[in-house]
Protein backbone atom coordinates (compact mmCIF):
# COMPACT_ATOMS: atom_id res chain seq x y z
CA UNK A 1 0.00 0.00 0.00
CA UNK A 2 2.74 2.40 0.99
CA UNK A 3 4.66 2.13 -2.23
CA UNK A 4 1.46 2.44 -4.22
CA UNK A 5 0.97 5.86 -2.66
CA UNK A 6 4.63 6.74 -3.19
CA UNK A 7 4.30 5.83 -6.84
CA UNK A 8 1.25 8.06 -7.22
CA UNK A 9 3.06 11.00 -5.63
CA UNK A 10 6.11 10.41 -7.78
CA UNK A 11 4.06 10.28 -10.96
CA UNK A 12 2.29 13.48 -10.03
CA UNK A 13 5.54 15.29 -9.39
CA UNK A 14 6.93 13.98 -12.65
CA UNK A 15 3.85 15.12 -14.55
CA UNK A 16 4.13 18.60 -13.09
CA UNK A 17 7.87 18.83 -13.66
CA UNK A 18 8.02 17.65 -17.25
CA UNK A 19 7.02 20.97 -18.87
CA UNK A 20 10.06 22.59 -17.34
CA UNK A 21 12.32 19.83 -18.54
CA UNK A 22 11.06 20.27 -22.08
CA UNK A 23 10.96 24.06 -21.94
CA UNK A 24 13.88 24.49 -24.28
CA UNK A 25 12.48 22.53 -27.20
CA UNK A 26 9.16 23.97 -28.39
CA UNK A 27 8.45 20.98 -30.60
CA UNK A 28 8.63 18.44 -27.81
CA UNK A 29 6.90 20.82 -25.44
CA UNK A 30 4.00 21.02 -27.86
CA UNK A 31 3.74 17.25 -28.02
CA UNK A 32 3.78 17.21 -24.24
CA UNK A 33 0.95 19.73 -24.19
CA UNK A 34 -1.13 17.67 -26.60
CA UNK A 35 -0.42 14.62 -24.47
CA UNK A 36 -1.71 16.31 -21.33
CA UNK A 37 -4.80 17.39 -23.23
CA UNK A 38 -5.53 13.87 -24.34
CA UNK A 39 -4.88 12.47 -20.88
CA UNK A 40 -7.55 14.84 -19.61
CA UNK A 41 -9.93 13.99 -22.43
CA UNK A 42 -9.48 10.26 -22.35
CA UNK A 43 -9.89 10.11 -18.58
CA UNK A 44 -13.24 11.80 -19.03
CA UNK A 45 -14.31 9.36 -21.69
CA UNK A 46 -13.01 6.47 -19.65
CA UNK A 47 -15.55 7.34 -16.99
CA UNK A 48 -18.29 6.55 -19.44
CA UNK A 49 -16.87 3.86 -21.67
CA UNK A 50 -14.69 2.10 -19.16
CA UNK A 51 -16.73 2.38 -16.04
CA UNK A 52 -20.27 2.58 -17.26
CA UNK A 53 -19.89 0.52 -20.40
CA UNK A 54 -21.47 3.15 -22.64
CA UNK A 55 -19.49 4.31 -25.63
CA UNK A 56 -20.15 7.98 -26.13
CA UNK A 57 -19.46 8.78 -29.75
CA UNK A 58 -20.63 12.36 -29.32
CA UNK A 59 -17.77 13.16 -26.99
CA UNK A 60 -15.88 15.30 -29.49
CA UNK A 61 -19.00 17.24 -30.33
CA UNK A 62 -19.44 18.08 -26.67
CA UNK A 63 -15.80 19.15 -26.47
CA UNK A 64 -16.57 21.40 -29.42
CA UNK A 65 -19.43 22.99 -27.57
CA UNK A 66 -17.15 23.66 -24.63
CA UNK A 67 -14.52 25.07 -26.97
CA UNK A 68 -16.76 27.33 -29.04
CA UNK A 69 -18.61 28.64 -25.99
CA UNK A 70 -15.40 29.51 -24.21
CA UNK A 71 -13.80 31.06 -27.30
CA UNK A 72 -16.84 33.20 -28.00
CA UNK A 73 -17.01 34.42 -24.42
CA UNK A 74 -13.31 35.25 -24.34
CA UNK A 75 -12.98 36.82 -27.76
CA UNK A 76 -16.36 38.48 -28.19
CA UNK A 77 -17.27 39.34 -24.61
CA UNK A 78 -13.81 39.80 -23.17
CA UNK A 79 -14.52 37.40 -20.36
CA UNK A 80 -11.54 35.93 -18.61
CA UNK A 81 -10.70 32.39 -19.69
CA UNK A 82 -11.04 31.18 -16.10
CA UNK A 83 -14.68 32.30 -16.01
CA UNK A 84 -15.46 31.32 -19.58
CA UNK A 85 -14.10 27.82 -19.32
CA UNK A 86 -16.45 26.62 -16.56
CA UNK A 87 -19.35 28.14 -18.49
CA UNK A 88 -18.26 26.29 -21.60
CA UNK A 89 -17.86 23.07 -19.65
CA UNK A 90 -21.30 23.51 -18.16
CA UNK A 91 -22.77 24.13 -21.60
CA UNK A 92 -21.17 20.92 -22.82
CA UNK A 93 -22.48 19.03 -19.81
CA UNK A 94 -26.01 20.34 -20.20
CA UNK A 95 -26.11 19.59 -23.92
CA UNK A 96 -24.62 16.18 -23.20
CA UNK A 97 -27.28 15.31 -20.67
CA UNK A 98 -30.15 16.76 -22.68
CA UNK A 99 -29.13 14.93 -25.85
CA UNK A 100 -27.86 11.84 -24.12
CA UNK A 101 -30.60 11.33 -21.57
CA UNK A 102 -33.25 9.98 -23.93
CA UNK A 103 -30.77 7.61 -25.49
CA UNK A 104 -29.61 6.25 -22.13
CA UNK A 105 -32.61 3.98 -22.28
CA UNK A 106 -31.23 2.32 -25.37
CA UNK A 107 -29.26 -0.86 -25.10
CA UNK A 108 -25.72 -1.31 -26.34
CA UNK A 109 -25.37 -0.73 -30.07
CA UNK A 110 -28.37 1.57 -30.33
CA UNK A 111 -26.90 3.87 -27.73
CA UNK A 112 -23.62 3.96 -29.61
CA UNK A 113 -25.47 4.60 -32.85
CA UNK A 114 -27.44 7.47 -31.36
CA UNK A 115 -24.15 8.92 -30.16
CA UNK A 116 -22.86 8.75 -33.71
CA UNK A 117 -25.98 10.45 -34.99
CA UNK A 118 -25.75 13.25 -32.45
CA UNK A 119 -22.05 13.71 -33.20
CA UNK A 120 -22.78 14.02 -36.91
CA UNK A 121 -25.54 16.49 -36.20
CA UNK A 122 -23.25 18.54 -33.96
CA UNK A 123 -20.53 18.63 -36.61
CA UNK A 124 -23.09 19.82 -39.14
CA UNK A 125 -24.18 22.48 -36.68
CA UNK A 126 -20.60 23.64 -36.24
CA UNK A 127 -20.17 23.95 -39.99
CA UNK A 128 -23.47 25.62 -40.76
CA UNK A 129 -23.89 28.07 -37.86
CA UNK A 130 -21.14 30.55 -38.70
CA UNK A 131 -22.23 33.20 -36.21
CA UNK A 132 -21.01 30.95 -33.45
CA UNK A 133 -18.27 29.02 -35.11
CA UNK A 134 -17.15 30.81 -38.27
CA UNK A 135 -18.00 27.58 -40.07
CA UNK A 136 -15.35 25.56 -41.83
CA UNK A 137 -12.86 28.40 -41.83
CA UNK A 138 -12.62 28.12 -38.11
CA UNK A 139 -11.62 30.63 -35.50
CA UNK A 140 -7.98 31.61 -35.25
CA UNK A 141 -5.83 33.88 -33.12
CA UNK A 142 -7.37 32.52 -29.96
CA UNK A 143 -5.44 34.06 -27.08
CA UNK A 144 -3.92 31.85 -24.40
CA UNK A 145 -5.39 32.05 -20.90
CA UNK A 146 -3.92 34.67 -18.62
CA UNK A 147 -3.60 35.11 -14.89
CA UNK A 148 -4.85 38.43 -13.55
CA UNK A 149 -2.18 39.78 -11.22
CA UNK A 150 -2.26 43.06 -9.35
CA UNK A 151 -1.09 45.61 -11.84
CA UNK A 152 -1.10 43.57 -15.06
CA UNK A 153 -2.37 40.36 -16.52
CA UNK A 154 0.13 37.65 -17.12
CA UNK A 155 -0.55 35.61 -20.26
CA UNK A 156 0.30 31.99 -19.89
CA UNK A 157 2.55 31.15 -22.78
CA UNK A 158 5.27 28.70 -23.43
CA UNK A 159 6.20 26.52 -20.51
CA UNK A 160 3.52 28.07 -18.30
CA UNK A 161 0.82 27.02 -20.71
CA UNK A 162 2.05 23.47 -20.74
CA UNK A 163 2.26 23.56 -16.98
CA UNK A 164 -1.35 24.72 -16.83
CA UNK A 165 -2.32 21.78 -18.99
CA UNK A 166 -0.30 19.50 -16.74
CA UNK A 167 -2.16 20.73 -13.68
CA UNK A 168 -5.50 20.33 -15.45
CA UNK A 169 -4.64 16.81 -16.52
CA UNK A 170 -3.43 15.79 -13.06
CA UNK A 171 -6.55 17.24 -11.42
CA UNK A 172 -8.80 15.43 -13.88
CA UNK A 173 -7.10 12.11 -13.30
CA UNK A 174 -7.42 12.58 -9.56
CA UNK A 175 -11.08 13.47 -9.97
CA UNK A 176 -11.84 10.38 -12.03
CA UNK A 177 -9.88 8.25 -9.59
CA UNK A 178 -11.83 9.67 -6.68
CA UNK A 179 -15.12 9.03 -8.42
CA UNK A 180 -14.29 5.45 -9.24
CA UNK A 181 -13.57 4.78 -5.58
CA UNK A 182 -16.78 6.38 -4.42
CA UNK A 183 -20.23 4.91 -4.19
CA UNK A 184 -20.95 6.31 -7.65
CA UNK A 185 -17.99 4.41 -9.01
CA UNK A 186 -19.15 1.14 -7.49
CA UNK A 187 -22.62 1.69 -8.91
CA UNK A 188 -21.20 2.44 -12.36
CA UNK A 189 -19.23 -0.78 -12.40
CA UNK A 190 -22.28 -2.72 -11.24
CA UNK A 191 -24.36 -1.07 -13.96
CA UNK A 192 -21.77 -1.97 -16.52
CA UNK A 193 -21.69 -5.59 -15.40
CA UNK A 194 -25.45 -6.14 -15.23
CA UNK A 195 -27.73 -3.14 -15.36
CA UNK A 196 -30.98 -5.05 -14.82
CA UNK A 197 -29.66 -6.77 -11.72
CA UNK A 198 -28.36 -3.46 -10.41
CA UNK A 199 -31.75 -1.83 -10.83
CA UNK A 200 -33.43 -4.79 -9.15
CA UNK A 201 -31.13 -4.43 -6.13
CA UNK A 202 -32.40 -0.95 -5.44
CA UNK A 203 -29.93 1.24 -7.35
CA UNK A 204 -31.28 4.00 -9.60
CA UNK A 205 -29.53 3.10 -12.83
CA UNK A 206 -30.80 6.05 -14.83
CA UNK A 207 -29.77 8.62 -12.25
CA UNK A 208 -26.27 7.21 -11.94
CA UNK A 209 -25.83 7.03 -15.69
CA UNK A 210 -26.95 10.63 -16.02
CA UNK A 211 -24.48 11.65 -13.35
CA UNK A 212 -21.66 9.83 -15.10
CA UNK A 213 -22.74 11.40 -18.37
CA UNK A 214 -22.79 14.86 -16.82
CA UNK A 215 -19.33 14.56 -15.33
CA UNK A 216 -17.90 13.01 -18.46
CA UNK A 217 -19.39 15.75 -20.65
CA UNK A 218 -18.09 18.38 -18.25
CA UNK A 219 -14.59 17.03 -18.69
CA UNK A 220 -15.08 16.94 -22.47
CA UNK A 221 -16.01 20.60 -22.35
CA UNK A 222 -13.04 21.52 -20.19
CA UNK A 223 -10.76 19.69 -22.60
CA UNK A 224 -12.33 21.46 -25.54
CA UNK A 225 -11.81 24.87 -23.97
CA UNK A 226 -8.16 24.16 -23.20
CA UNK A 227 -7.63 22.73 -26.66
CA UNK A 228 -8.93 25.88 -28.29
CA UNK A 229 -6.78 28.19 -26.21
CA UNK A 230 -3.71 26.02 -26.51
CA UNK A 231 -3.79 25.49 -30.26
CA UNK A 232 -4.96 29.03 -30.90
CA UNK A 233 -7.22 27.71 -33.64
CA UNK A 234 -10.38 25.63 -33.84
CA UNK A 235 -12.53 24.39 -36.66
CA UNK A 236 -15.36 21.85 -36.92
CA UNK A 237 -12.79 19.30 -38.08
CA UNK A 238 -11.19 19.44 -34.66
CA UNK A 239 -14.30 18.00 -33.11
CA UNK A 240 -15.67 15.50 -35.57
CA UNK A 241 -16.51 11.82 -35.31
CA UNK A 242 -12.91 10.79 -35.94
CA UNK A 243 -11.84 12.73 -32.86
CA UNK A 244 -14.41 10.88 -30.74
CA UNK A 245 -13.29 7.63 -32.24
CA UNK A 246 -9.61 8.32 -31.66
CA UNK A 247 -10.21 9.36 -28.07
CA UNK A 248 -12.01 6.07 -27.59
CA UNK A 249 -9.07 4.32 -29.20
CA UNK A 250 -6.71 5.85 -26.67
CA UNK A 251 -8.92 4.64 -23.85
CA UNK A 252 -9.56 1.22 -25.36
CA UNK A 253 -5.96 0.66 -26.41
CA UNK A 254 -4.63 1.73 -23.04
CA UNK A 255 -7.17 -0.19 -21.02
CA UNK A 256 -10.76 0.73 -20.34
CA UNK A 257 -11.96 0.78 -16.79
CA UNK A 258 -8.56 1.44 -15.27
CA UNK A 259 -7.14 4.76 -14.18
CA UNK A 260 -3.74 4.28 -15.75
CA UNK A 261 -5.13 2.81 -18.95
CA UNK A 262 -5.97 6.11 -20.65
CA UNK A 263 -2.63 7.52 -19.56
CA UNK A 264 -0.76 4.59 -21.06
CA UNK A 265 -2.86 4.83 -24.20
CA UNK A 266 -2.24 8.55 -24.52
CA UNK A 267 1.49 8.23 -23.98
CA UNK A 268 1.74 5.65 -26.72
CA UNK A 269 -0.73 7.00 -29.26
CA UNK A 270 -1.06 10.75 -28.95
CA UNK A 271 2.48 11.69 -30.02
CA UNK A 272 2.42 9.46 -33.10
CA UNK A 273 1.12 11.93 -35.68
CA UNK A 274 3.60 14.55 -34.52
CA UNK A 275 6.72 12.51 -33.83
CA UNK A 276 6.47 10.60 -37.06
CA UNK A 277 5.91 13.52 -39.39
CA UNK A 278 6.18 11.46 -42.54
CA UNK A 279 3.42 9.27 -41.24
CA UNK A 280 1.03 12.16 -40.74
CA UNK A 281 -0.70 11.40 -44.00
CA UNK A 282 -1.31 7.89 -42.81
CA UNK A 283 -2.63 8.90 -39.42
CA UNK A 284 -6.15 7.75 -40.21
CA UNK A 285 -4.96 4.42 -41.54
CA UNK A 286 -2.82 3.83 -38.48
CA UNK A 287 -5.47 4.82 -36.00
CA UNK A 288 -8.17 2.93 -37.87
CA UNK A 289 -5.94 -0.10 -38.02
CA UNK A 290 -5.27 0.15 -34.31
CA UNK A 291 -9.00 0.28 -33.61
CA UNK A 292 -9.52 -2.91 -35.59
CA UNK A 293 -6.49 -4.47 -33.93
CA UNK A 294 -7.65 -3.51 -30.45
CA UNK A 295 -11.16 -4.85 -30.89
CA UNK A 296 -9.87 -8.20 -32.13
CA UNK A 297 -6.68 -8.83 -30.20
CA UNK A 298 -6.48 -6.45 -27.30
CA UNK A 299 -9.96 -5.87 -25.92
CA UNK A 300 -8.53 -5.22 -22.49
CA UNK A 301 -6.01 -2.73 -23.75
CA UNK A 302 -2.31 -2.67 -23.05
CA UNK A 303 -2.47 -1.82 -19.38
CA UNK A 304 -5.64 -3.83 -18.83
CA UNK A 305 -4.05 -6.95 -20.29
CA UNK A 306 -1.02 -6.42 -18.10
CA UNK A 307 -3.23 -6.28 -15.00
CA UNK A 308 -5.20 -9.30 -16.13
CA UNK A 309 -2.13 -11.47 -16.68
CA UNK A 310 -0.66 -10.38 -13.39
CA UNK A 311 -3.87 -11.35 -11.62
CA UNK A 312 -4.24 -14.73 -13.33
CA UNK A 313 -0.63 -15.60 -12.62
CA UNK A 314 -1.11 -14.67 -8.98
CA UNK A 315 -4.27 -16.78 -8.80
CA UNK A 316 -2.50 -19.71 -10.43
CA UNK A 317 0.35 -19.43 -7.95
CA UNK A 318 -2.08 -19.26 -5.05
CA UNK A 319 -3.94 -22.33 -6.26
CA UNK A 320 -0.72 -24.25 -6.68
CA UNK A 321 0.55 -23.60 -3.17
CA UNK A 322 -2.24 -24.11 -0.64
CA UNK A 323 -2.00 -21.85 2.37
CA UNK A 324 -3.82 -22.29 5.69
CA UNK A 325 -7.03 -20.27 5.90
CA UNK A 326 -6.25 -16.92 7.46
CA UNK A 327 -9.13 -15.61 9.49
CA UNK A 328 -10.20 -12.16 8.32
CA UNK A 329 -12.31 -9.79 10.34
Amino acid at each position, binding site marked *: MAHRRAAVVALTILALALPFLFAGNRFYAFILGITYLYILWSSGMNLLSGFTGLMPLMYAGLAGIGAYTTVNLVMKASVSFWLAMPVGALAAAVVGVVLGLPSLRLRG*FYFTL*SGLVIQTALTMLFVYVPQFTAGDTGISQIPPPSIPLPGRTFPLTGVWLEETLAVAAVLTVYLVRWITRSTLGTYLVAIREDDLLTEALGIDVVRNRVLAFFISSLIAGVGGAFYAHYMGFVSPRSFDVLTSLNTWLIVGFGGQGTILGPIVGTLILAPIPYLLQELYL*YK*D*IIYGGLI*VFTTIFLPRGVYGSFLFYRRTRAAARAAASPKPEVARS
Partner: protein
Amino acid sequence: MTLEAILLNGLAVITTGLVVGAIFSLVAAGVTIMYGTIWLPNASNGQFFMLAALLTWSMVIGWGLSPFLGAAVVIAGAIPFSLLLEKCLIRPFYNVPNRNIVYFIMTLGLAQIFAGAFTGTYGQWTDNYSIPAAWPGALMIGPFPFPRTRFLVLLVSFSLLTGLFVFLRLHRVGRALRAVFQNREAAILRGVDVRRIYRFSFVLAMLVITTGGVLFAMAYGFDLTMSWTMAIIAFAIMIVGGPGSVLGSVVIGMIFGFTQAAVSLFASPTLATFSYLVVMLIILLVKPSGLFAR
Protein backbone atom coordinates in the same frame (compact mmCIF):
# COMPACT_ATOMS: atom_id res chain seq x y z
CA MET B 1 -42.88 29.94 -62.32
CA THR B 2 -44.16 28.91 -65.71
CA LEU B 3 -45.98 25.63 -66.16
CA GLU B 4 -43.07 24.37 -68.19
CA ALA B 5 -40.67 25.14 -65.37
CA ILE B 6 -42.86 23.41 -62.84
CA LEU B 7 -43.12 20.37 -65.07
CA LEU B 8 -39.38 20.27 -65.64
CA ASN B 9 -38.58 20.67 -61.97
CA GLY B 10 -41.21 18.17 -61.00
CA LEU B 11 -39.94 15.58 -63.43
CA ALA B 12 -36.39 16.25 -62.31
CA VAL B 13 -37.36 15.61 -58.72
CA ILE B 14 -39.29 12.49 -59.61
CA THR B 15 -36.59 10.95 -61.74
CA THR B 16 -33.78 11.90 -59.37
CA GLY B 17 -35.85 10.67 -56.47
CA LEU B 18 -36.38 7.34 -58.17
CA VAL B 19 -32.74 6.79 -59.04
CA VAL B 20 -31.27 8.08 -55.80
CA GLY B 21 -33.97 6.33 -53.80
CA ALA B 22 -33.26 3.05 -55.54
CA ILE B 23 -29.58 3.30 -54.76
CA PHE B 24 -30.29 4.29 -51.18
CA SER B 25 -32.55 1.25 -50.94
CA LEU B 26 -29.85 -1.03 -52.28
CA VAL B 27 -27.23 0.09 -49.81
CA ALA B 28 -29.70 0.09 -46.94
CA ALA B 29 -30.88 -3.38 -47.93
CA GLY B 30 -27.31 -4.60 -47.72
CA VAL B 31 -26.80 -2.99 -44.34
CA THR B 32 -30.06 -4.32 -42.98
CA ILE B 33 -29.36 -7.86 -44.18
CA MET B 34 -25.99 -7.79 -42.47
CA TYR B 35 -27.41 -6.48 -39.25
CA GLY B 36 -30.55 -8.56 -39.26
CA THR B 37 -28.89 -11.88 -39.97
CA ILE B 38 -25.41 -11.70 -38.49
CA TRP B 39 -26.06 -8.91 -36.03
CA LEU B 40 -23.33 -6.97 -37.78
CA PRO B 41 -23.89 -3.21 -37.91
CA ASN B 42 -21.46 -2.26 -40.64
CA ALA B 43 -20.27 1.30 -40.08
CA SER B 44 -17.96 1.06 -43.07
CA ASN B 45 -20.78 0.41 -45.53
CA GLY B 46 -20.32 3.90 -46.90
CA GLN B 47 -16.63 3.23 -47.48
CA PHE B 48 -17.37 0.03 -49.40
CA PHE B 49 -19.90 2.01 -51.42
CA MET B 50 -17.21 4.59 -52.12
CA LEU B 51 -14.64 1.91 -52.89
CA ALA B 52 -16.93 0.39 -55.49
CA ALA B 53 -17.55 3.80 -57.04
CA LEU B 54 -13.87 4.74 -57.04
CA LEU B 55 -12.76 1.44 -58.51
CA THR B 56 -15.34 1.72 -61.26
CA TRP B 57 -14.01 5.18 -61.97
CA SER B 58 -10.47 3.81 -62.09
CA MET B 59 -11.50 1.08 -64.48
CA VAL B 60 -13.14 3.50 -66.86
CA ILE B 61 -10.91 6.55 -66.60
CA GLY B 62 -7.67 4.89 -65.65
CA TRP B 63 -7.80 1.67 -67.62
CA GLY B 64 -10.15 2.71 -70.39
CA LEU B 65 -12.64 -0.08 -69.91
CA SER B 66 -16.21 0.46 -70.97
CA PRO B 67 -18.41 1.33 -68.00
CA PHE B 68 -20.28 -1.94 -68.34
CA LEU B 69 -17.11 -3.96 -68.25
CA GLY B 70 -15.70 -1.90 -65.43
CA ALA B 71 -18.87 -2.41 -63.44
CA ALA B 72 -18.77 -6.15 -64.02
CA VAL B 73 -15.14 -6.38 -62.92
CA VAL B 74 -15.75 -4.47 -59.71
CA ILE B 75 -18.83 -6.46 -58.81
CA ALA B 76 -17.10 -9.74 -59.54
CA GLY B 77 -14.12 -8.60 -57.49
CA ALA B 78 -16.37 -7.93 -54.55
CA ILE B 79 -16.89 -11.65 -54.02
CA PRO B 80 -13.36 -12.71 -53.11
CA PHE B 81 -12.89 -9.44 -51.23
CA SER B 82 -15.96 -10.10 -49.09
CA LEU B 83 -14.97 -13.69 -48.47
CA LEU B 84 -11.56 -12.57 -47.27
CA LEU B 85 -13.07 -9.92 -45.02
CA GLU B 86 -15.52 -12.40 -43.62
CA LYS B 87 -12.86 -14.93 -42.83
CA CYS B 88 -10.47 -12.53 -41.12
CA LEU B 89 -12.62 -9.97 -39.39
CA ILE B 90 -16.19 -11.15 -39.15
CA ARG B 91 -16.05 -14.86 -38.47
CA PRO B 92 -14.07 -14.68 -35.20
CA PHE B 93 -16.99 -13.04 -33.48
CA TYR B 94 -19.89 -15.26 -34.49
CA ASN B 95 -20.26 -16.69 -31.02
CA VAL B 96 -19.61 -13.54 -29.02
CA PRO B 97 -22.81 -12.44 -27.29
CA ASN B 98 -22.52 -8.67 -27.61
CA ARG B 99 -20.83 -8.78 -30.96
CA ASN B 100 -22.94 -5.99 -32.40
CA ILE B 101 -21.04 -3.39 -30.41
CA VAL B 102 -17.69 -4.97 -31.21
CA TYR B 103 -18.58 -5.09 -34.90
CA PHE B 104 -19.75 -1.50 -34.82
CA ILE B 105 -16.53 -0.23 -33.30
CA MET B 106 -14.38 -2.43 -35.50
CA THR B 107 -16.13 -1.30 -38.66
CA LEU B 108 -15.76 2.30 -37.53
CA GLY B 109 -12.03 1.66 -37.37
CA LEU B 110 -12.18 0.02 -40.76
CA ALA B 111 -14.03 3.06 -42.08
CA GLN B 112 -11.30 5.28 -40.75
CA ILE B 113 -8.68 3.17 -42.53
CA PHE B 114 -10.51 3.44 -45.82
CA ALA B 115 -11.19 7.14 -45.40
CA GLY B 116 -7.52 7.76 -44.80
CA ALA B 117 -6.53 5.53 -47.69
CA PHE B 118 -8.90 7.27 -50.07
CA THR B 119 -7.66 10.71 -49.10
CA GLY B 120 -4.10 9.59 -49.42
CA THR B 121 -4.54 8.04 -52.84
CA TYR B 122 -7.54 9.13 -54.87
CA GLY B 123 -7.81 12.36 -52.92
CA GLN B 124 -4.39 13.45 -54.12
CA TRP B 125 -5.38 13.26 -57.79
CA THR B 126 -8.73 14.95 -57.98
CA ASP B 127 -11.68 16.18 -55.96
CA ASN B 128 -14.51 15.17 -58.21
CA TYR B 129 -15.09 11.95 -60.00
CA SER B 130 -17.36 11.33 -62.93
CA ILE B 131 -17.64 8.67 -65.54
CA PRO B 132 -18.77 9.38 -69.07
CA ALA B 133 -22.27 8.10 -69.74
CA ALA B 134 -22.38 4.39 -70.44
CA TRP B 135 -25.45 4.78 -72.60
CA PRO B 136 -25.23 8.20 -74.13
CA GLY B 137 -28.18 10.38 -74.91
CA ALA B 138 -31.44 10.92 -73.13
CA LEU B 139 -35.01 9.77 -73.16
CA MET B 140 -37.51 12.55 -73.49
CA ILE B 141 -40.32 12.53 -70.97
CA GLY B 142 -42.30 15.41 -72.36
CA PRO B 143 -39.94 18.38 -72.21
CA PHE B 144 -37.69 16.65 -69.73
CA PRO B 145 -34.52 14.85 -70.83
CA PHE B 146 -33.87 11.77 -68.73
CA PRO B 147 -30.32 10.58 -69.34
CA ARG B 148 -30.38 7.05 -70.68
CA THR B 149 -27.66 5.90 -68.30
CA ARG B 150 -29.70 6.93 -65.31
CA PHE B 151 -32.71 5.20 -66.74
CA LEU B 152 -30.64 2.06 -67.10
CA VAL B 153 -29.37 2.39 -63.55
CA LEU B 154 -32.96 2.74 -62.40
CA LEU B 155 -34.01 -0.42 -64.24
CA VAL B 156 -31.09 -2.41 -62.91
CA SER B 157 -31.63 -1.23 -59.33
CA PHE B 158 -35.28 -2.06 -59.33
CA SER B 159 -34.65 -5.47 -60.89
CA LEU B 160 -32.03 -6.18 -58.29
CA LEU B 161 -34.28 -5.10 -55.44
CA THR B 162 -37.14 -7.17 -56.79
CA GLY B 163 -34.84 -10.12 -57.23
CA LEU B 164 -33.57 -9.74 -53.69
CA PHE B 165 -37.07 -9.59 -52.37
CA VAL B 166 -38.17 -12.68 -54.30
CA PHE B 167 -35.05 -14.53 -53.28
CA LEU B 168 -35.63 -13.88 -49.58
CA ARG B 169 -39.26 -14.94 -49.78
CA LEU B 170 -39.19 -17.91 -52.08
CA HIS B 171 -35.74 -19.41 -52.45
CA ARG B 172 -34.62 -22.05 -49.97
CA VAL B 173 -31.47 -20.20 -49.01
CA GLY B 174 -33.26 -16.88 -48.81
CA ARG B 175 -35.83 -18.36 -46.48
CA ALA B 176 -33.06 -19.82 -44.34
CA LEU B 177 -31.61 -16.32 -44.09
CA ARG B 178 -34.89 -14.97 -42.83
CA ALA B 179 -35.25 -17.89 -40.44
CA VAL B 180 -31.89 -17.12 -38.91
CA PHE B 181 -32.82 -13.49 -38.60
CA GLN B 182 -36.09 -14.19 -36.90
CA ASN B 183 -34.92 -16.83 -34.48
CA ARG B 184 -31.39 -18.13 -34.52
CA GLU B 185 -31.97 -20.98 -32.08
CA ALA B 186 -35.02 -22.25 -33.89
CA ALA B 187 -33.17 -22.13 -37.18
CA ILE B 188 -30.35 -24.22 -35.74
CA LEU B 189 -32.88 -26.75 -34.53
CA ARG B 190 -34.33 -26.92 -38.00
CA GLY B 191 -30.96 -27.93 -39.32
CA VAL B 192 -29.83 -24.63 -40.77
CA ASP B 193 -26.05 -24.28 -40.90
CA VAL B 194 -25.93 -20.87 -39.31
CA ARG B 195 -22.28 -20.12 -40.02
CA ARG B 196 -22.70 -20.75 -43.70
CA ILE B 197 -25.76 -18.54 -43.73
CA TYR B 198 -23.77 -15.82 -42.04
CA ARG B 199 -21.06 -16.06 -44.65
CA PHE B 200 -23.62 -16.05 -47.41
CA SER B 201 -25.49 -13.05 -46.03
CA PHE B 202 -22.30 -11.10 -45.64
CA VAL B 203 -21.22 -11.71 -49.22
CA LEU B 204 -24.72 -11.08 -50.54
CA ALA B 205 -24.99 -7.83 -48.62
CA MET B 206 -21.56 -6.71 -49.79
CA LEU B 207 -22.51 -7.47 -53.38
CA VAL B 208 -25.65 -5.39 -53.03
CA ILE B 209 -23.73 -2.48 -51.53
CA THR B 210 -21.02 -2.77 -54.18
CA THR B 211 -23.59 -2.74 -56.94
CA GLY B 212 -25.11 0.34 -55.37
CA GLY B 213 -21.75 2.07 -55.50
CA VAL B 214 -21.07 1.01 -59.05
CA LEU B 215 -24.49 2.14 -60.24
CA PHE B 216 -24.14 5.45 -58.47
CA ALA B 217 -20.79 6.07 -60.13
CA MET B 218 -22.37 5.39 -63.50
CA ALA B 219 -25.28 7.72 -62.87
CA TYR B 220 -23.73 10.70 -61.08
CA GLY B 221 -20.52 12.47 -60.33
CA PHE B 222 -19.35 12.19 -56.74
CA ASP B 223 -16.72 13.24 -54.22
CA LEU B 224 -15.08 11.62 -51.23
CA THR B 225 -17.42 13.03 -48.59
CA MET B 226 -20.17 10.80 -49.92
CA SER B 227 -18.80 7.86 -47.99
CA TRP B 228 -19.70 9.11 -44.53
CA THR B 229 -22.95 10.63 -45.76
CA MET B 230 -24.01 7.36 -47.35
CA ALA B 231 -23.18 5.45 -44.20
CA ILE B 232 -25.34 7.70 -42.06
CA ILE B 233 -28.17 7.59 -44.57
CA ALA B 234 -28.00 3.82 -44.78
CA PHE B 235 -28.18 3.46 -41.02
CA ALA B 236 -31.00 5.96 -40.86
CA ILE B 237 -32.96 3.99 -43.44
CA MET B 238 -32.28 0.74 -41.66
CA ILE B 239 -33.38 2.06 -38.28
CA VAL B 240 -36.46 3.81 -39.54
CA GLY B 241 -37.46 0.95 -41.80
CA GLY B 242 -36.76 -1.67 -39.20
CA PRO B 243 -33.52 -3.63 -38.89
CA GLY B 244 -33.63 -6.79 -40.94
CA SER B 245 -36.55 -5.67 -43.07
CA VAL B 246 -35.68 -5.33 -46.75
CA LEU B 247 -39.16 -4.07 -47.44
CA GLY B 248 -38.60 -1.34 -44.89
CA SER B 249 -35.30 -0.42 -46.52
CA VAL B 250 -36.95 -0.06 -49.89
CA VAL B 251 -39.92 1.99 -48.71
CA ILE B 252 -37.90 4.30 -46.52
CA GLY B 253 -35.07 4.37 -49.06
CA MET B 254 -37.42 5.65 -51.74
CA ILE B 255 -38.89 8.22 -49.37
CA PHE B 256 -35.45 9.48 -48.44
CA GLY B 257 -34.48 9.52 -52.10
CA PHE B 258 -37.40 11.74 -52.99
CA THR B 259 -36.71 13.93 -49.97
CA GLN B 260 -33.12 14.33 -51.12
CA ALA B 261 -34.21 15.27 -54.61
CA ALA B 262 -36.88 17.67 -53.46
CA VAL B 263 -34.77 19.40 -50.82
CA SER B 264 -31.81 19.79 -53.17
CA LEU B 265 -34.08 21.88 -55.37
CA PHE B 266 -34.51 24.65 -52.83
CA ALA B 267 -31.80 24.20 -50.28
CA SER B 268 -28.52 22.54 -49.48
CA PRO B 269 -28.57 18.72 -49.64
CA THR B 270 -27.05 18.78 -46.18
CA LEU B 271 -30.41 19.88 -44.90
CA ALA B 272 -31.88 16.65 -46.19
CA THR B 273 -29.19 14.63 -44.44
CA PHE B 274 -29.85 16.57 -41.28
CA SER B 275 -33.53 15.70 -41.50
CA TYR B 276 -32.71 11.99 -41.85
CA LEU B 277 -30.65 12.24 -38.66
CA VAL B 278 -33.55 13.81 -36.82
CA VAL B 279 -35.99 11.18 -38.04
CA MET B 280 -33.59 8.39 -37.13
CA LEU B 281 -33.12 9.79 -33.66
CA ILE B 282 -36.86 10.09 -33.17
CA ILE B 283 -37.46 6.51 -34.26
CA LEU B 284 -34.60 5.27 -32.06
CA LEU B 285 -36.16 6.90 -29.06
CA VAL B 286 -39.80 6.23 -29.76
CA LYS B 287 -39.97 2.96 -31.68
CA PRO B 288 -36.53 1.37 -31.92
CA SER B 289 -37.84 -1.66 -33.75
CA GLY B 290 -38.59 0.54 -36.74
CA LEU B 291 -41.68 1.10 -38.80
CA PHE B 292 -41.71 -2.24 -40.58
CA ALA B 293 -40.63 -4.36 -37.67
CA ARG B 294 -41.15 -8.08 -38.04
